[in-house]
C-alpha cells in the first residue's frame, strides 16, 4: 500500500519515506501506522530525528506567525471608503434613472402640448385636423371660373389642405400666416385682379382661366396688409 506520502507500508521505513511523511505532516498525524513507523525510524536514525525536530520547530513557528495575524482585519477606513463608493455608485445610478424618466416625461409632455397647439391652430384657421380624411375633398378647388360657366365658388369653404375662398356666405377666408384681427381695425377693399394672382395668396387657381379678371374683396388690417379674402357674388 502506498499513500500520498510515498510510504509503502513496510517497516522499517527508509529515510526518504521518513522525510516525505514528516513533510506531509497531516497525513502522518492521521494515519496511526504511519505515525508508528515515523516514531520508530526517528529513534533509529539521528539525522532524521534532527530533521523531525527542525520540521516541528518550523511548524510551531508557522503557527505562531499565523497567530500573530489571526485577528488582523482591514482598518475601518477601508470600510468607509468602500461604503462611500457603494453609496456614490448607487446614488448616481438612481439619479441617472430619475433623469432618464424625467426627460422622457418632459418629451412626452412637449409632444402632447405640440399636438394640442397644432389642433387648436387648425381649428382656429378653419382647417381640418385630419388632412388625410379630406383626400377626396382635396380635389375641390376654388371655382374661380366666374360667370363664364354660370357657376360660382359658393359653398366651398374649407377642404383639406386646399385653401378655398367663400363667396356665398360673405365670410372671409384667412390668408395663410395671418391672424384674425378685430373687424373694427380692418377695412374691406374690393379690387380687380387677374384670377391667377389668387395663387400668390395661397389659393388654387384653374390655370385655364388664370388670365380672367375678377373682383375680390380683401380684408386689409391696420398694418395695410391683406388678412383675408372673399369672392363677391358678382364678378365683372
Amino acid at each position, binding site marked *: 500500500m502506498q499513500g500520498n506520502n510515498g510510504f509503502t507500508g513496510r517497516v522499517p521505513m527508509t529515510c526518504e519515506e521518513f522525510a516525505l511523511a514528516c513533510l506531509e505532516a497531516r497525513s502522518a498525524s492521521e494515519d496511526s501506522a504511519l505515525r508508528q513507523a515515523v516514531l520508530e525510524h526517528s529513534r533509529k536514525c539521528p539525522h532524521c530525528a534532527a530533521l523531525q525536530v527542525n520540521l516541528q520547530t518550523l511548524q510551531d*513557528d508557522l503557527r505562531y506567525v499565523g497567530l*500573530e*495575524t489571526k485577528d*488582523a482585519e482591514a482598518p475601518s477606513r477601508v470600510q468607509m471608503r*468602500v*461604503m462611500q463608493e457603494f453609496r456614490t455608485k448607487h446614488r448616481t445610478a438612481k439619479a441617472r434613472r430619475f433623469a432618464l424618466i424625467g426627460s422622457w416625461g418632459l418629451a412626452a409632455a412637449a409632444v402632447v402640448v405640440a399636438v394640442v397647439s397644432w389642433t387648436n391652430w387648425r381649428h382656429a384657421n378653419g382647417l381640418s385636423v385630419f388632412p388625410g380624411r379630406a383626400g377626396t375633398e382635396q380635389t375641390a378647388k376654388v371655382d374661380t371660373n366666374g360667370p363664364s360657366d354660370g357657376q360660382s365658388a359658393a359653398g366651398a369653404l374649407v377642404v383639406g389642405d386646399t385653401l378655398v375662398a367663400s363667396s356665398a356666405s360673405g365670410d372671409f377666408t384667412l390668408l395663410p400666416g395671418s391672424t384674425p384681427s378685430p373687424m373694427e381695425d380692418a377695412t374691406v377693399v374690393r379690387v380687380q385682379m387677374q384670377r391667377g394672382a389668387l395663387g400668390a395668396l395661397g389659393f388654387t387657381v384653374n390655370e385655364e382661366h388664370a388670365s380672367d379678371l375678377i373682383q375680390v374683396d380683401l380684408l386689409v388690417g391696420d398694418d395695410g396688409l391683406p388678412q383675408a379674402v372673399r369672392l363677391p357674388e358678382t364678378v365683372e
Partner: protein
Amino acid sequence: MPIETDDRDDVLLRRSAKGDQDAFALLYRKYQAPLYRFALRMTGQSWAAEEIVQEVFLIVIREPRKFDPNRGTLGGFLYGVARNRVMKHLERSPRDLPLTEETDDGFSPDTLASKEMTPVEWAELHERRARVRAAVLDLPVEFREAVVLCELEEMSYEEAASTLDCPVGTIRSRLHRGRALLLAKLEMLREVPRRVHAGQ
C-alpha cells in the same frame, strides 16, 4: 425585507447589486478579514493588504456580474480577485519584501511572547519569527499561497483547493514543497530553535 445573516452569498450579492447597502455591508463584514489576512501574509505589507481588500470590494460594487454562482463560491471568487491583485502587487514591487519587523505592518510580535522568557530568549524568539516571516514571503508565489492558506490560515486541503481553484493534490504537493523550501531557507537557524526548544 430584513436581511438574515444566513442568507446565501449570491443572494446578498444580488441584493447588493440592486443597491441594498445592508446586504453589501454583510458581505464586507464576512469577507474583509480573511481577505485582508491573506493579502497581508502574501505581501507582508499592511498598506498593500488594505489596497487589495479595497480593490476586491470595488469590483464587487462595480462589476457584480463578474461572479457566476455556477462556477464556484463567492469566497472563492473573492480570493481569486485578491490573488490577482497580490500577483500584480508582487510584479510591481517583487523585491520590496520587509526583512525586519515593522510595528505598523499589521504584525504584532509581542502578543505571543511569554512573560516568563528572559530577554535573551525573547530576542531569539523575536528574531526567529521575523526570519520565518521573511522566509515565507520569500517563497515562490504558488508555494507561498499553499503555506499561507494551509499553515497560517489553517484551512483544510479541500478548502485551500477550492479557494485557489486547483486540485487537492496540487495543494498537497505545493505545501510539501513549500515546507521543504522553508526548511532549506531556515537551515541556518537549526541551532537556535533547538536551544530555545530545550529551554522551554
